[in-house]
C-alpha cells in the first residue's frame, strides 16, 4: 500500500468515525465574514429569573414571596428594585448594569423556557448543552465551531472554557482550551531536556488512534498562544475594575484574549451557586452576592471593551427559573421559565423582551411556575444568524422553532 493510498484510507475511515451525518450538506460562510466573539455565561443550578428581572408591577409577586421579594421602587428601602419601565425593575445587585441598559447595550428576556421542560438540573442542562437527541453530535457550541470558518485563520485556538473540564456545550469541539487560569496554562520546565521530552510526548500522540490526540494538540497550541499574552499585567481600559472572583477573573482574561486577537472567538464560563433552595437572600444573601458578582463584572467588561474594536455579544443563561412561591426555607425550589440576559453593542438592549405570563394562579405553569412564553432556542437561533453569521443554524440547534424575533441587531 502506498503512502497516498494509506492516507486516503485513513481519512475515509476517520471521516466515518468523526463526522456527524449532517456535515456533507453544510455550506460554509464565506471567509472573511465578520462575526461577534461570543461569551456564554451559564449559571448552573437554575437562577431565579424573578429576581433578575423583578415584576414589581405584579402584586402576586409580593403575595407569593412574602420574605424573599425585591421591594418596589419608590418604597424608600435601600433594597428596592431599580425601575426599568414601570413594571419591571433590576435588583439592587444589578445596579452597575443600569447604565449599560440605558445605553441600549444590556437587555433582558423574561419568561424564557422550552415546551415539555423538566425541573431536573441534569436533564435540563444536558438538553440545553447538547440541543440534539444524539449526544454523539457533541455540544451546540461545538457544532457552531464545526460549521464556521475560524474568525482568525492564523489563530490556533478558537474557544476557551473557564471550567474544570470540557463543558458539555463544547463537547467534542476542536481548537479549544479548558482552564480556570490561562496565566497558568503551560507545560512544565522541570527537566533539563524538557523540550526534547515534550517533543517525544507529541510524537507519541501523533500516532495514537484515540480521542486524546486533538486535546493534547490543542493544549499545546494554547500554551504557546497564551505565552505571548501578559494576563497578569493586563490593565483594563476605561477605568474598568474587575472583582477578584471566578467571573471577574474570567471576564478580565477574556478581555485580554479578545484584544490580543489570538483567534479566540468563543468563550464559555460556568458559574455555580444558583440553586437557591434555602435562605436565598434576593437583596442581602447568597443570591444577592452572586448577582452582584455577575452584574458588576459584566459592567466592568462592558467598560473595558468599549474602546476596543472587538465586536462581542454576551449571553447569560440557566437551565430553568425557580418556583414562584417561596418554600419553607426562605428559598425557592426548581421552577420552569427563567430569565436570559444579553449584553453587547449588537443586542437590542434597553428593553425587556418577552411576554409577561402573569402570576395569577390560573396563569402559573402546572399551578406553581412562571409560564414560559419565549423559547430560548429562538434567542440562540437569532444570535447564531445575526451576530455569529452562522448559515447552518439547523445543524447547531436542530428543530428549533422559528419566529419573528428581534433580540439582536443585524450585523
Amino acid at each position: 500500500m502506498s503512502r497516498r493510498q494509506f492516507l486516503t484510507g485513513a481519512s475515509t475511515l476517520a471521516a466515518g468515525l468523526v463526522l456527524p451525518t449532517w456535515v456533507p450538506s453544510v455550506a460554509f460562510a464565506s471567509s472573511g465574514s465578520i462575526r461577534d466573539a461570543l461569551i456564554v455565561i451559564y449559571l448552573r443550578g437554575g437562577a431565579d429569573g424573578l429576581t433578575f428581572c423583578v415584576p414589581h408591577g405584579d402584586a402576586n409577586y409580593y403575595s407569593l414571596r412574602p420574605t424573599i421579594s425585591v421591594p418596589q421602587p419608590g418604597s424608600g428601602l435601600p433594597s428596592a428594585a431599580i425601575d426599568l419601565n414601570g413594571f419591571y425593575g433590576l435588583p439592587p445587585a444589578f445596579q452597575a448594569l443600569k447604565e449599560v441598559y440605558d445605553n441600549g447595550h444590556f437587555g433582558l428576556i423574561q419568561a424564557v423556557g422550552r415546551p415539555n421542560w423538566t425541573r431536573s438540573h441534569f436533564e435540563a442542562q444536558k438538553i440545553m448543552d447538547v440541543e440534539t437527541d444524539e449526544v454523539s453530535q457533541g455540544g451546540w457550541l461545538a457544532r457552531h465551531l464545526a460549521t464556521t470558518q475560524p474568525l482568525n485563520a492564523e489563530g490556533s485556538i478558537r474557544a476557551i472554557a473557564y471550567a474544570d473540564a470540557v463543558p458539555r456545550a463544547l463537547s467534542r469541539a476542536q481548537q479549544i482550551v479548558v482552564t480556570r487560569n490561562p496565566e497558568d496554562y503551560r507545560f512544565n520546565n522541570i527537566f533539563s531536556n524538557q523540550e526534547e521530552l515534550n517533543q517525544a510526548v507529541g510524537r507519541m500522540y501523533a500516532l495514537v488512534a484515540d480521542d486524546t490526540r486533538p486535546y493534547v494538540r490543542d493544549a499545546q497550541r494554547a500554551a504557546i498562544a497564551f505565552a505571548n499574552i501578559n494576563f497578569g499585567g493586563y490593565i483594563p481600559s476605561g477605568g474598568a475594575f474587575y472583582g477578584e472572583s471566578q467571573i471577574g477573573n474570567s471576564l478580565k482574561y477574556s478581555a485580554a484574549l479578545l484584544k490580543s486577537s489570538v483567534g479566540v472567538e468563543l468563550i464559555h464560563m460556568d458559574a455555580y451557586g444558583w440553586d437557591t433552595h434555602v435562605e436565598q437572600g434576593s437583596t442581602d444573601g447568597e443570591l444577592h452576592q452572586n448577582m452582584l458578582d455577575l452584574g458588576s463584572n459584566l459592567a466592568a467588561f462592558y467598560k473595558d471593551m468599549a474602546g476596543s474594536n472587538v465586536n462581542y455579544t454576551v449571553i447569560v443563561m440557566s437551565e430553568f427559573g425557580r418556583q414562584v412561591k417561596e418554600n419553607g426555607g426562605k428559598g425557592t425550589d426548581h421552577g420552569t421559565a427563567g430569565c436570559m440576559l444579553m449584553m453587547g453593542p449588537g443586542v437590542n438592549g434597553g428593553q425587556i423582551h418577552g411576554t409577561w405570563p402573569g402570576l395569577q394562579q390560573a396563569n402559573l405553569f402546572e399551578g406553581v411556575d412562571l409560564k414560559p412564553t419565549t423559547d430560548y432556542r429562538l434567542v440562540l437561533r437569532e444570535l447564531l444568524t445575526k451576530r455569529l453569521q452562522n448559515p447552518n443554524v439547523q445543524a447547531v440547534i436542530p428543530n428549533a422553532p422559528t419566529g419573528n424575533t428581534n433580540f439582536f441587531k443585524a450585523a
Partner: protein
Amino acid sequence: MLSRLVEDVLNPSDLDGPENSQDQSNSRKISRRGALAGGLVAAMSAVAGAANAQSRMTPQRAPGSRPPNNNGFGGGVSGGGVSSGSAVYSGGLVSGGSGNNPAVNTQRTWQDADLKLLRRINYGPTPADVAELKAIGYTAYLEKQMNPASIEDTACEARVQQFSPYLYDTFVTLNQQPWWSITGNWNDAVIVRSIYSKRQLQQRMLEFWMDHFYVDSVKVPGPVILDYYRSISQECFGTFRELLKRSANHGAMMIYLDNLFSTATLINVNYAREILELHTVGVNGGYTEADIYQVADAFTGWSVVEDGNPNENEFVFKPSLHMPGTRTIMQKSFPQSGKAQGDAVLDWLATHPSTIKYIGNKLTRFFLGKDASPALMSKIQSAWGANGDIKAVLREILSRTEIINSVPKFKRPNHLVYGSIRQLGLNLTYISGIYSGHLVKMNMAPFKWFQPDGYPDAFEYWAGGMVRRIRFVQEINSNSGLIQLMDVSAMLSMDDAARVTEINSRLFLGELPVTDQVWIRRYLKGKSGHEAMRSAISLAMAGSSYQWY
C-alpha cells in the same frame, strides 16, 4: 526500519492531506518562535503521516511484550476531521461518546483477561498484585477482593492511622475537634487507602458509591462527612437497600440536600427529587413531578440534631415536623405513619425495576466503559434479589466474558494520581502535596464536586485537562515534586531494551503496545543518569497507553 521512521518524522513536508497541511503551517510558525514546548505540536503533525512507515516496520520486541495491534493506526487519527473534496472544515468534532457510544481508543486492546480485570478493580496494579492474581486465579482473586475483611491490610491501616487519627472516633468526639483537622482526616484516608490498600476493589467501589450518594464538603461540616464516609465504606459490598438507607439516615445527606428545611408546613423538594432522579430509579424511571412532591411529604421530619448539642448534625427524625397522611408514589400507596413511611418508600425503591436498571447500567459503565448488554442486564436483574446484592451483581459485571469485552476508559484524575503513585511505589510522607498540588489542580479533590450528581465519569469531560495530567506525571518523576522519587538506580546499568522492559512490567503489566516501546526506546537512546530514566518513565506515563485503562 527505525531510521526510516525517524526520516519520516523529520520530513513533515513529505506528508499528504489537508489536515497535515494545516498542522504544518501552524507548526512552522511555532518552531520559528522557538517556544520551549512548541516541538510537541510540530512533532504531532509531522508524525501523523508517518504512520505508514510505522505500520511497515518491525520493531525489536521487548521480552514479555505482546504483538502490536495493527488496528491502532490510521483508524482514529481524529484530530483534524478532514475529508478532502467536500466542504468539511478541519475544526470538526472529536469523535467518541459516552454510555452506549464509548470514546474512541482503538489502540488499547489489552489481551490478558486477568490483567484486564486487575486494571478495572485496582487503581494501579503492582507486580505483587499481578503475582497474587496469577497464583490464585481470576475467580478466587475477585472473591477475595469482594471480601475486604479477609485481606490483611495492616501496613496501609497503620499509615491511615498516622494521617487520620480521628477516623474511628465517635460523632461527639469529632464534633469537639477543630473543623480543619477533621477535613484532613477524611481527605487523607481516601488518598492513603486508594494508593496503598490491598483492598483495591473496596476503594474503587467506595469511589463509585461516594459519587452516587454524593455530598460535598463545602456545605456539609467535616465531622459529618467523615462519619458518612466510614458508614458508606462499610457497606460497599453489602446491599443496595442498606446503602440507600445509610445515605438517607445520615446528617450529611439531610444537610446537603436541604431536607432539614422540609417540614409539614412548607416542604423543600430538593432531596426528594434526587432520591428518585439520582439515587434510585433515574430520571427516566417513570415518575412524575407530582410523585416528587409525594416523596417530599413522606420525608418531612427527616432532619438533624440542632446546633449546640454534643451530637449536633447527627441524623434525627422529628415527628412534630412530619406531615401525616398516606402517600401515593408511582401508583404505589404508602399508608405508614411517621418515619416508617420514608423507610417503606426506600425499601420499595431499592428493588424497583427502574432502580435495578439504572444502578446496573451505571455500575457497568464504571467498570466496563459501556452500558450493560441485554444479556448482562438480565443477569444483573436476577442477581439483584430482594435487597440489591452488590457482590452478586459485581460477579456478573466483572465476569471474565464481560471483562474481555469491556472497552477502554479514560482515567479520571483521581485514578491517574492514585494509580501512578501506587505503581511507582512512592512513599508519601506529605499528603497535602498530593491533595493541593495535584488533586485540587486537576479538579478532583474528594467531596469537592459542585452538584449532587457526583464527579462525571466521561472522557469528554476530563479530556480538557491534558496539560495538568502531563505536568503531573512529569512532576512526580522530577525533583520539582513534593514527594520522594522512585528509585531508578537499577535501571542505570541496564541496556535500553531492558529499561523499556522494566517500565513495561512496572507500569503496563508487560502489555505496553510495541509502538510505545519504540518511542520510549528511541527517547532513551544515548541517555544515562537518574534524571533521564525518570523522564523516560514520565514519557511512558504521559502517553495515551497510560492515560486510559
